[in-house]
């Protein structure tokens, strides 16, 4: 089965990180993705630009409302995702436990 590992959390530490900290964190992500590849569990993923770059499109009763900013103006925002193959939710959570960020795990339909 496939699971979605969403990188979530407060975006401020990343926004405030210097080049060395960013380099170190990218290296951690590189190791995490290499581990997934080695387990043949990696099904791709992307880093997303920070939430202030978001645009939200809402449709209601024939009207379309376009606003700047993310859907939810919360401290914790989605900053990227990885799709993984795992036998169960518990295995997906085990993989998620090695991800270098806070993470929300969801089962993929179909």
């Amino acid at each position, binding site marked *: 089965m496939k699971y979605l590992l*969403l990188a979530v959390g407060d975006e401020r530490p990343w926004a405030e990180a210097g080049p060395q900290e960013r380099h170190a964190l990218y290296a951690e992500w590189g190791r995490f993705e290499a581990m997934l590849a080695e387990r043949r569990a990696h099904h791709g993923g992307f880093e*997303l630009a920070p939430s202030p770059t978001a645009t939200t499109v809402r449709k209601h009763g024939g009207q*379309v409302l376009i606003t700047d900013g993310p859907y939810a103006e919360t401290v914790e925002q989605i900053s990227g995702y990885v799709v993984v193959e795992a036998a169960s939710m518990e295995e997906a959570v085990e993989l998620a436990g090695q991800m270098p960020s806070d993470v929300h795990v969801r089962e993929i*339909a179909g």
Partner: protein
Amino acid sequence: MKYALLLYSATGAWAEASEQEQAAIMAEHEKFTALLVERGALVGGEALHGPEQGVTLRRSGGDALRTDGPFAETVEHLGGFYIVEAADLDAAIELARACPEEIVEVRPVVESSG
């Protein structure tokens, strides 16, 4: 440029829909997917099972705190996403308008990192 279209829908909206309604929603997404393919704009996408089965791990010190259930206390939850190729933000917004979901958050994808 690649953009993520994050789709938000009310919790239970899918589960409470009749089989006919579900088939209609699926058909609309198939039409939208066909539109993306026709334009060479489809990069990827996934539909998700309900948020009540989600698991969140938050790190604090060396420990990971596990929470079962939805990630955020919002009315709508992430129900799926598309990754699309678009010339610019306006083109991505146009695709979001064509997407058969009431709430679509458009976010640029970071294409070079490290």
